[in-house]
């Protein structure tokens, strides 16, 4: 099974910039989200008779506000964080689900890859004289199938980028809420030796947050893709069905968890140090 690749495959280059298949899919998803946002904005009205879509969306937004309020316990903080957290949720949700759309694996191109293989041969025992063969390097024109689209969150680059965005936003919102000296005082705490050590631990835990956010999302979605591939390989049409259901559920939960964890850490970052 050579379709499973941890690394996103490179399609073409623009200038010096390598475009991989997950970058292409991210671009498509971004365009979809922006177009949807414009369409909804156009049709939005505050008259008495509103369409079902609009009332559904209003329900959704009020519901998510109340869930955020239950975490932050503060209405003003919820409003401040709503844009970032909701955007993360929508982007990650669509990224997770896009890997399940039919055609995301099979549609692709064949590329000739030059793979230089070392033909490693064993040297026979010295009793047989004819056998000494050195390892020779041969270049095979090896044909590889590259899918054009790939779910963005199954690529570690995308999830790492999202985690870096979250990390930067923690610092920015923390400084905005507390002021830079108080915020830096959480990490560089010179009041006592124990405090200093705790400050160092806080720095390490920031990095751990970033790593855990990215790897959680990447691991879940990539493992789901591998699972679906293996299931389709074993029993072609029947076995993947329950696993598709599982993947839809997991995609929703992982998007929710990423957004929730970002919200919780944002709240912790804007809390006063005790």
């Amino acid at each position: 099974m050579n379709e499973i690749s941890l690394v996103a495959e490179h399609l073409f280059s623009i200038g010096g910039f390598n475009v991989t298949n997950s970058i292409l899919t991210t671009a498509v998803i971004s365009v979809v989200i922006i177009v949807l946002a414009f369409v909804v904005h156009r049709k939005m009205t505050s008259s008495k008779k509103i369409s079902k879509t609009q009332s559904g969306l209003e329900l959704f937004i009020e519901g998510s506000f109340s869930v955020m309020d239950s975490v932050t316990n503060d209405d003003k903080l919820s409003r401040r964080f709503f844009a970032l957290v909701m955007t993360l949720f929508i982007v990650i949700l669509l990224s997770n689900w896009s890997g399940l759309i039919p055609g995301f694996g099979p549609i692709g191109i064949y590329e000739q890859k030059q793979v230089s293989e070392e033909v490693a041969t064993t040297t026979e025992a010295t009793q047989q004289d004819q056998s000494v063969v050195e390892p020779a390097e041969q270049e095979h024109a090896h044909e590889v199938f590259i899918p054009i689209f790939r779910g963005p969150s199954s690529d570690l680059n995308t999830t790492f980028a999202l985690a870096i965005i979250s990390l930067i936003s923690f610092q920015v919102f923390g400084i905005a809420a507390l002021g830079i000296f108080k915020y830096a005082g959480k990490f560089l705490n010179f009041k006592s030796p124990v405090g200093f050590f705790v400050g160092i631990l806080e720095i390490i835990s920031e990095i751990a947050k970033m790593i855990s956010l990215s790897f959680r999302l990447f691991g879940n979605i990539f493992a789901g893709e591998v699972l679906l591939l293996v299931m389709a390989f074993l029993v072609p049409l029947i076995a993947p069905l329950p696993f598709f259901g599982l993947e839809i559920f997991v995609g929703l939960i992982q998007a929710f968890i990423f957004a929730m964890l970002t919200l919780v850490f944002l709240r912790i970052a804007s809390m006063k140090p005790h």
Partner: protein
Amino acid sequence: MDLEVAKAFAAAAAIGLGSIGPGLAIGMLAAKAMESIGRNPESASKIQVPMLLAIAFAEAIAIYALVVALIIKFV
């Protein structure tokens, strides 16, 4: 033994052993949550979101083990 055989064993062991801890952790978390909901059914909605967050943290450890196994197998 061959490198390929050792890789297969390593990948299997990584994910097999690595999911014991998180499995136990998630079980204990959910058990305590169920017990407290049983004692006080009105608090169900207040318990749900923190429970989900805690389960996500525990599951992340299993995901680290899975990523290690996948890296061993496919890289």
